């Protein structure tokens, strides 16, 4: 596989960046799935950055925060980093409240997988 391959519907890898399209509802159920998938890819491939794209996400609870924190710790340990993009109003509110914006850069409504797709 080249370093510019779509891996699944919800993920793609561009250069050394793993883009993850976060589902409509980010809760304990979906957060566990995303974590597993992301960790598998990071183990297999040379990934320096994970970008979480919240374009489609209308619901997020504290399990989502745990998922982001977990990926952040893993990437830090590997010398990489984590970003969140395309956060809508609700997701922005939750990320703000959690204080995670102090350690993970969060962009609202610009960039992200939506724009990256051909």
């Amino acid at each position, binding site marked *: 596989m080249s370093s510019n391959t779509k891996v699944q519907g919800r993920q793609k890898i561009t250069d050394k960046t793993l883009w993850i399209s976060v589902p409509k*509802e980010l809760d*304990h159920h979906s957060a566990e799935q995303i974590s597993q998938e992301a960790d598998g890819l990071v183990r297999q491939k040379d990934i320096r950055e994970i970008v979480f794209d919240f374009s489609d996400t209308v619901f997020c609870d504290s*399990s989502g925060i745990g998922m982001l924190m977990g990926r952040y710790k893993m990437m830090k340990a590997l010398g990489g980093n984590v970003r969140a993009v395309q956060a809508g109003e609700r997701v922005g509110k939750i990320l703000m409240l959690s204080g995670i914006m102090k350690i993970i850069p969060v962009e609202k409504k610009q960039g992200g997988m939506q724009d990256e797709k051909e």
Partner: protein
Amino acid sequence: MKRNEMKIEFDSISDNEAFARVTVAAFMAQMNPSMEEVADVKTAVSEAVTNAIIHGYEGKVHKITITGVIEDALLSLEVADQGVGIRDVKKAMEPLYTSRPELERSGMGFLFMEAFMDEVQVSSRPGEGTIVTMKKMIGQHGE
């Protein structure tokens, strides 16, 4: 007085987190809530139900119940499990405290419940289970 009551009981599997949220949202629809109020209540319900699944029953499949009562503009919700219970409720409710960091819990569940509801009470007994009671005034916007 407008009054309505419902109770749901479901298995403690993570598929049912979304089910619980949608059910409570459907129940409160008759209160003419704002989109934000619905999102706030869904988040609080999601936290309490997730806690019952992960902490209360530690992943085993048992029953969770949610009771909802509407009294005019007041929504009261009770999320109950018959799981392991909480020894020190005060400590459990401290922001960022979690007993399961290895499961990537953020310790923000109770924080979110308190942020999004007007009132949160926890009653628990080790070995018997936990009841989280939450209240919120709904549909009072623009008054």
